[in-house]
């Protein structure tokens, strides 16, 4: 088990493995994204209260639930950086942060559009779900800024790791904000297998397709960006120079 764990710490091993996986993941991403978006925006049934506005839900929920994964991923990577000083973990932490900021921004934007139609307001400062999500966006921006503000890459890695672990607390707050306090935002839906009841498969199956598409998007992005990061940081190593020479 430890051998397997330490193999992930090798940039070359990651580079070779991701090179083999990327075409498959990209293919799966395109498939799920096309099916998900077309299904979400054209075929999801209307809601008895909200009519076709619920189609925003499919996109919003997919983006929002994925955005909650970023801090836990960065915290795990950060813990590995702090405890085992594995460079690969820090590279993943670095590449995943900007995407997390994008996902948080898209969550806020899609939610705002939905809210403007249904609630009658774009934004409510008093709603803890909304403000905690905005806080996550700012936290991710601060992780990115912190890294670029510190010149020494090892110090930057440690500082970002600590901030990422701290940021996980906010994920819990976002998740349970709608249960702990009263909010304008509705709580999470209880899914139903029965097509004759509320939240039936007609709503959650396309949402699930979109969620899978978003995680595939994350995986593809992280792999591609981490490969770039590997080439940048390992540019002096023999295998990268061989690779560049072979490509010429």
């Amino acid at each position: 088990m430890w051998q397997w764990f330490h193999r992930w710490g090798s940039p070359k091993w990651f580079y070779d493995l991701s090179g083999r996986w990327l075409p498959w993941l990209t293919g799966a991403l395109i498939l799920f994204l096309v099916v998900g978006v077309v299904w979400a925006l054209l075929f999801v049934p209307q809601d008895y209260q909200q009519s076709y506005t619920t189609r925003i839900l499919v996109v919003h929920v997919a983006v929002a639930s994925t955005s909650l994964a970023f801090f836990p991923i960065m915290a795990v990577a950060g813990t590995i950086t702090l405890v085992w000083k594995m460079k690969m973990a820090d590279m993943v932490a670095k590449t995943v942060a900007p995407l997390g900021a994008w996902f948080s921004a898209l969550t806020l934007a899609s939610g705002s559009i939905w809210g403007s139609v249904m609630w009658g307001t774009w934004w409510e400062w008093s709603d803890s779900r909304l403000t905690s999500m905005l806080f996550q966006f700012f936290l991710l921006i601060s992780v990115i800024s912190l890294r670029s503000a510190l010149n020494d890459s090892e110090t930057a890695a440690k500082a970002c790791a600590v901030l990422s672990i701290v940021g996980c607390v906010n994920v819990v707050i976002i998740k349970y904000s709608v249960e702990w306090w009263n909010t304008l935002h509705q709580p999470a839906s209880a899914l139903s297998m029965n097509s004759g009841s509320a939240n039936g498969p007609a709503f959650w199956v396309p949402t699930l397709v979109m969620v899978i598409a978003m995680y595939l998007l994350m995986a593809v992005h992280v792999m591609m960006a981490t490969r770039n990061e590997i080439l940048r940081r390992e540019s002096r190593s023999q295998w990268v120079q061989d690779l560049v020479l072979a490509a010429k």
Partner: protein
Amino acid sequence: MKPHRRKRLAIILFIAAGLSVGIGLTLYALRQNLNMFFTPSQVAAGEFPPGREIRIGGMVKEGSVLHADDSLEVRFVATDYASDVPIHYQGILPDLFREGQGIVVEGQVDRAGVLQASRVLAKHDENYMSPEVKAALDAAHVERPGYGQVSEGVPDGT
């Protein structure tokens, strides 16, 4: 795992746990401020800051909506099925506003106990279903708390 790594991991876990407890206690202390609105029962019991803008959340009571004939003025009652708060509002209501619907109203409670609203927002619940499913459930008399019956028009205000 080597001892120095185990020690570092223990320190991280300890800090994370301590931080969680600290933030948890802070949030617990702030719990009323983190709520978006007061319930009609809290308003009835006087548990709100007087003379300040407050928000209350509840349902639009069935049969309580009175529209003025010649203006955007509207009177209705917000309820949590335990206490009622009369509301007076002048302005555009959100599309989802209807009897039995969850709403959040912002405004000041006047001396007569009427909330003079400056804003009315609509809440919707987390149960999504097509009109056909809703009709079938209604026909089967499936009653669940929190569901709004779609009202067939509103009283004419006379």
